[in-house]
Structure formats: C-alpha cells, structure tokens
C-alpha cells in the first residue's frame, strides 16, 4: 500500500472511532444540563438522574477528548501539504474551536465533575449549561471547517497557497449552517434514543420505575422531534446544497449513472460501476427530480456528466447514503410511534415498543457515521472541493511504513479504549442511577 492509501485509512479509522463519542456528548449534553438544572431547583429525582447521566457523559467525554487530540494534529503529521496550503484558512475555525469551545467544555466539566457540594448549586447548574454550550460550539467549528472543504468560500489563491479573505463568509456559509444543523439533529436523535433506550431497559427489567419512565418519556420526545428535523428541513436543505455544488456526489449517492429528466429515486439496488447501471433496483418514478429540484420534470445530472477520474468511489458513497436513509426511516418510525403511544399514555405498558426503543439505540449512531462517510467519500477525489486533490495532500517526508506502524498503534489503542468504554458504561447502566455514586463523590474521601 502506498502512503496515500494508508493515510486515508488511518484518518478514516481514527475519525470514525472518535466521532462515536461526540455524537453522544453533543446529544446528551442538553439532558445533563436539564437534569442538573432541575436538581438545582430541588428535584431530588432529577439529581439522581443528573449524577447518572453526568457519569455516562464523563466516560464519553474522556474517550472523545483523547481520541480527538490526534485528529487536529494529524492534519500536520499526515497531511502536511494540505496543511501548508490551506492552514491560513482552516486553521482559523480549528483555532477557534480550541479557544471558544474546547476550553469552555473542559474548564466547566471540571467544575461539573468535581464541584458537587463545593460550588453553589446554581453555579453547578451553570457549569452544566456551559458544557452543553461548549459541546455544541465545538461541533459548529469542526463542521464549518469541513463545510469549507466541501464548498470553499471567502478565499483566494496565491500561487499554490490559499488565503483567507473573509472569516465571516466561512463561518456564515449557508452550506456550513445546514450541514451543522443536520449533524446536530443527528446527534440529538442519538442522545434521545440513548436516554429512552436505557429507560426502556430499566422498565423491561422491572427496576428503577420512576426514573425509567422519566428517561423513556424525555428521550422519546427528543428523539421524535429531532428525527423529523433531521429529515426536514436540515437533511433536505443539505441535499439541495449537494445538488447545487457537488452534482457528482449526488449522482454517486443515488447511483445515477446517466443524466436524466424525470429521474427516478432508487430505494434499493446495487450499483454496477463497470456497466453503469443499478442491479435489481426498486424505483420511485420521477421522485429524485422532485427531491433535488422540487420539480418532477427536472433534469438531474448523472455521473456521465464528468470524466471517470472525477467520480467519487460510487459503491461506498451509494451504500453509505442508503444505509443512512434506510436506518433514518426506521428510527423516525420508531420514535414517532413511541411518541404517539406516550401521548396516549400507553407507552410504559407496551413492552413491544419498549423493546423497539431499546434495540433501535445503535441505529442513529450508524446513520450518523454513514452520513459522514457519504459526505467525505463523496467529495473524493478532492480534499478541498475543486481546489486540491487528496492524492497531493499528504506529507512529503512521511513514508507508508511509518503510517502503517502508527495505524497499528492506533488500532491497538482504540481497541483497548473501546473495551474499556463498553465495560465502564455497561457497568454504570447495570448498577443503575439509584445505587450509583456521582463521579466526583466516588473518589471523594470524607474529610
């Protein structure tokens, strides 16, 4: 394998593993803040809930932080040519992420974890809100950076170097905002399902009745609301941006080889890249034209509009997109059904639905990851769309053997982290909120 392939493999592996944890922290942060806030106002049950979710949040945050550090530095270690050319642009939102978001999260998480009983309850609740704000801001700066690589704005070329001409254009780019809102809704769906699913687990195992119900109810409301928002308007506007700015990504996502009027939407089907067709497709006639342009007659550009060298890897893009949409449909259905039963006050007495809520928990995670695979692989062969090829972005002095070595190291380390994460989280869930001590007090030696 050449260095480029290993670099890509390493980035894909480290970023996809890392992203599992921010999904949870972004999605759980509002729950932690909500319960901590209620606890500060004297709700004893919410205090138990807050301590429990803070523990789960802390484990996720810890692994999210340690796996996040390599990512920012990998730009320099593995993608030096990319960094040297574009650092003046993308370094800005990344530096802002550190300065405006990561500090906020870290400093106040310290206060949230260690401050119980030491700081006034209002400050404690304020710390939870600051952590929430920090996690969402952090997500924004990272997505804004990525959105610039998808659709560069506010820059000019000076030789091979890219110069920033407008930071506000970068931060206020509509492409970035719809991508961010979509990512945010996706994480909130995951957070809602985690809370509801764990609540459902307690109810099904006949324990933690009061908190279990609360978790199921709160989680279901969030999951249902954001399942809808993740589809419309955020998902829809995101595809509109892709249609307008990255037509070959859209074509690969939909498996559309030939430009077509009245383009049909393929619900399933397997792309055959050699013969430029979909095998065994099920089509909804004209629907892709409608989704892309709001008009059943519109012409949708297919892959044939571009030279094959400019095609993204069709199989990966197509399947990742369909996995996202397919699982999205399932979790939308489950969340809306659960919300309806909740409204009719029958949810807690319907074990089948509680089972569904619990088993659907992994789907939002897979859909979130698949969405990122679609957007990142679909951007290929570009690292910065239209400006720089991924193949020219690597580090000139780093050879493939070195990257293989570090990839093996990362694989070993992340395997260990994954095992530790599962063990500690499942253990915390098994002990349950009522019998758990808080993170800070677990280690607190009575004076």
């Amino acid at each position, binding site marked *: 394998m050449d260095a480029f392939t290993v670099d890509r493999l390493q980035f894909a592996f480290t970023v996809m593993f890392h992203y599992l944890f921010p999904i949870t922290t972004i999605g759980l942060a509002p729950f932690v803040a909500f319960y901590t806030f209620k606890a500060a106002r004297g709700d004893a049950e919410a205090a138990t809930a807050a301590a429990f979710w803070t523990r789960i949040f802390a*484990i996720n*945050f*810890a*692994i999210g*932080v*340690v796996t996040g*550090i*390599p990512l*920012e*530095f990998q*730009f320099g*270690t593995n993608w*030096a*040519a990319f*960094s*040297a050319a*574009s*650092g*003046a642009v*993308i*370094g*800005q939102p*990344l*530096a*802002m*992420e*550190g*300065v405006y978001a*990561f*500090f906020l999260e*870290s*400093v*106040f*998480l*310290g*206060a949230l*974890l*260690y*401050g119980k009983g*030491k700081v006034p309850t209002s400050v404690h609740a304020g710390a939870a809100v600051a952590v929430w704000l920090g996690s969402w801001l952090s997500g924004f700066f990272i997505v804004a950076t990525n959105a610039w690589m998808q659709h560069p704005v506010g820059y000019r070329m*000076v030789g091979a170097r890219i*110069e*920033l001409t407008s*930071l506000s254009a970068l931060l206020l780019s509509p492409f970035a905002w719809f991508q961010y809102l979509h990512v945010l809704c996706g994480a909130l769906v995951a957070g809602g399902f985690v809370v509801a699913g764990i609540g459902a687990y307690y109810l099904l195992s006949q324990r933690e009745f009061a908190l279990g119900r609360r978790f199921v109810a709160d989680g279901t409301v969030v999951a249902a609301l954001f399942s809808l928002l993740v589809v419309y308007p955020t998902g829809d506007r995101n595809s509109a941006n892709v249609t307008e700015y990255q037509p070959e990504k859209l074509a690969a996502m939909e498996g559309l080889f030939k430009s077509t009027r009245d383009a049909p939407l393929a619900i399933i089907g397997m792309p055959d890249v050699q013969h430029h067709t979909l095998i065994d497709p099920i089509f909804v006639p004209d629907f892709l034209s409608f989704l892309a342009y709001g008009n059943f007659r519109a012409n949708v550009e297919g892959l044939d509009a571009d030279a094959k060298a400019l095609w993204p890897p069709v199989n990966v893009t197509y399947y990742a997109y369909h996995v996202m949409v397919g699982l999205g449909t399932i979790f939308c259905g489950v969340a809306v059904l659960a919300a309806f039963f909740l409204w009719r006050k029958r949810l807690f007495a319907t074990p089948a639905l509680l089972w569904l809520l619990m088993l659907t928990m992994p789907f939002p995670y897979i859909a979130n990851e698949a969405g990122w695979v679609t957007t990142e692989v679909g951007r290929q062969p570009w690292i910065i769309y239209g400006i720089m090829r991924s193949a020219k972005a690597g*580090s000139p*002095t780093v050879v493939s053997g*070195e990257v293989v070595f*570090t990839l093996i*190291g990362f694989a070993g*380390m992340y395997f260990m*982290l994954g095992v*530790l994460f599962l063990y500690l989280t499942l*253990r*915390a869930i098994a002990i349950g909120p009522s019998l758990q001590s808080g*993170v800070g007090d*677990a*280690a607190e*030696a*009575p*004076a």
Partner: protein
Amino acid sequence: MSTAAFALIAFILAMYVLLDGYDLGVGAITPLIARSDREREASMRSIGPFWNGNEVWLIAGGGALFALFPLAYASSFSGFYLPFIVVLWLLMFRGIAMELRSHFPSEIWHQFWDACFAASSTLLILLFGVALGNLLRGLPLNASEYFMGTFAFLLNPYALLVGVFALAVLAQHGAIFVMLRIDGTPSKRARTLYGGLWISAVVLLPAVTAATTLVRAGVLRTPWVDAVGTLALVSLVWSRVAVSRDRPVQAFGASCAFILALLASAAGTLYPYLIPAYPPGHRGLSIFDASPSPYALTTALTVIIAGLLAVIAYSSIVWRHFTTKIRIAE
C-alpha cells in the same frame, strides 16, 4: 504583525507549560510522594478539576500555529512524525488514566492507572524537553522547508540535557503544587523532594546555558536573554526561600516566574526563527517565510486574543472554588 503572531504562540505555549506543567509534574512525582491508594488518589484529585482545561492550551497552541504559520505547522509536525505520534499516545494514556481511575473501585484497577499516569507524565515532560532542545539546536530543512527527524538525530546529548532539565523544573513545579493543594503526608514528602529537585535545577541551569551557547554560537548574548536570565536566577532563589518559610503560594508564583523566564529566553534565542537551521548557517524557517496574509493574521490574532481573555477570566472565576486543600482520610 508576524512578530505579534510569534509572541502570541509563545504566550499560549508558555501558558501550557505553566499550567499543564504542574499537573505533569504532579504525575511524575506521584510514585515518590504518595505510597498508599488513598494518597495516590489525593494526588490525582489535586489536579482533577484542572488538567483537562490546562491541556487545551496545547490544543489552542497547535490551532494557533496552524492558523498563523501553516508552513511551520506542516513542516514540524510531519518532520517529527513518529516522536509526535508517540507524544499523542502518551497524552491519550495519561488522559484515560486520570479519567477512568475513579470509575471502578478496585485496588488493582487503581494501581494500573496510577502506573500509567506516572510513566506517561514523566515521559511527556522528557519528550517535550527533547523537542524544545531540538528546536533550539535547529533542524535540517530541505529546499521545500521539510525535514525527516529520525530518533537517532533527535536524541542528541544537548536535547536530552534539556529534557532532563525540563523534568527537574516541572517536577519541582508539581511538588510546590502538591504542597499547595494537599494537606498531609504527601505534602511533607513533596517538600523533602523539592529540596533535591531544587539542587539539581541549580546544577543543571548553568550546564544548559553553557550547552546552548555551544550549539547556538553567537545568538545568546542579547540584552533580552541577559534580563530574563537574571529573572530566572532571582525567582529560582526566591522559590527556595518561600518553601523554607512555608509559603507555598509565593513559591508557586516564583516557580511560574522561573519557568516563564526560561521560556522567554528560549523564545528570544529562537526569534525570528520558528525552526532555525541545523547546522547553523543553512536554511531555516523564519516568521517571515511562513506567515499568511495581513488580513488572516489580523483576524486570527483578534479572534484568538479575545477568546483567550474570556478563557482566562472564566477559568480564574471557576478555579477559585477549588482552593481548599484536599485532606486524606486515614
């Protein structure tokens, strides 16, 4: 403008060394000052609320370097490829050691993470020192400003000397922090340990100064370096006096001043280079080679400085709630 950017990055990294320096130092001396499970827990708890925020200064420094001097970021990170990844792994180990230790009530679990914590902290200080040493000594850049740093090249006697010096200085910094934060036996042991560390710093300081004059001939005798050198000496003596008078707050301040003075002299030695040449006289990477457009520089400086002022403000408000000493139950 480029000089302001250089100063900002130097400032962020100096804050990193001051802040994460004490918690790395606490990690390095924990096996020496804490013998029981309770004591080691207290030692880790003393930095518990702070270390994560402290480490963000490193991330912010990386981000600022990326934005302000992209070429230097790209060249140094890819040039130090393997050592850099090793630093990342150590940072990861250290982070999870601190975060996960308290999640499982077992002495075996605790002992494992305590060992990881101490080993990774010690190695990180050494490696950061070695990195700084190599930066001061210069790096062999090629025509397109890149280099390939092999371990054999990086582990030279001068850089190792700076590494050992960094360990002595930050262990001393951590020992003072323990005296500040913990009430009980670890604090007494930290005080004894401090005595030894202080003497080694006193011995190593002139040795490092002399060695730097050797590897970077001619650049050392500037008024700036003389001034901060004097400040370093004064604050080193002052911290010793403060410890013997039982004034840990003063001693901590003096230790901060000592570290700042050392870093300021290092920055003065480097300036205007981000990566000086090795051997001297060859091609180096200066702030004028690597800097982006005036618009990008001004924006980045404004945005980063405004953000950091807010960080300093809220960190000091939050951290004021954690000034009480940790007591160890028998």
